[in-house]
């Protein structure tokens, strides 16, 4: 099911969308929808990473927030070189 959503954009931005849509052989709506989906995914992922790095949430909760599998989340943070949230103090507390 789809719903209509109205939003006001600067003319320059609309022109940019139209130019890109023409280059990609897409209609303007399809292009904006595609960019919104990709942008939302990225925003969600970045938000989850931020919360994880700040030690506000666990790695699994972060994957849930990002709406990706834990395999994918682990793979991405490993590629990005984001260190495990475990500290030396954590290890000393449990050894």
């Amino acid at each position, binding site marked *: 099911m789809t719903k209509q959503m109205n939003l006001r954009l600067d003319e320059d931005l609309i022109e940019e969308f139209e130019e890109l849509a023409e280059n990609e052989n897409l209609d303007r709506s399809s292009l904006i929808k595609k960019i919104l989906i990709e942008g939302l995914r990225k925003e969600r992922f970045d938000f989850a990473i931020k919360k994880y790095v700040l030690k506000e949430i666990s790695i699994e909760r972060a994957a*849930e927030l990002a709406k990706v599998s834990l*395999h994918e989340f682990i793979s991405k943070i490993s590629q990005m070189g984001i*260190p495990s949230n475990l500290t030396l103090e954590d290890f000393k507390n449990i050894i």
Partner: protein
Amino acid sequence: MRLYVYDACALIYLTKIKAKEKLPLLGSVLVSPIVKNELIADIDRFSDAKLLKKNLDNKLIEERKVKLNSVNFAKNLGKGENETIVICIRNEGIPVTDDSQAINYALNCGLKPKTSELILLELLKQQIISYEEFQTMFEELVHIKSLKHEVILFFKNKAEEIIKK
């Protein structure tokens, strides 16, 4: 026999460093239903998920049913991590998790959590793996988890202490 209850993160890391097959030699390898689902999610894209599915099918990794209630549900943890801790509370299990938040929550619940690094030390201590195997697996873990320098030194020293005994 000791009951080790793994969360998905720890089991994925232990799979990546090829230590997973050694785990039953330490004790039972249990996972919760949600953790089981996480392990086999995205199976078409990740080879680790395929390996874990095989282990679940041949019961090397066993599923333990559990029901969560809101009383013992930590909101900063994932559902699988919460289930892991609840299973441990109810069965005197040892939670294995590679997350700081989950470790602290487990400690607050009176449990004695372990991480992948500690599992490797335990495998070494019980002579299930050699020192060379420990080094190879640990180096891989350092790389995948981007472990901090001080943590690396800490575990290298611990491993040396074990082999000197």
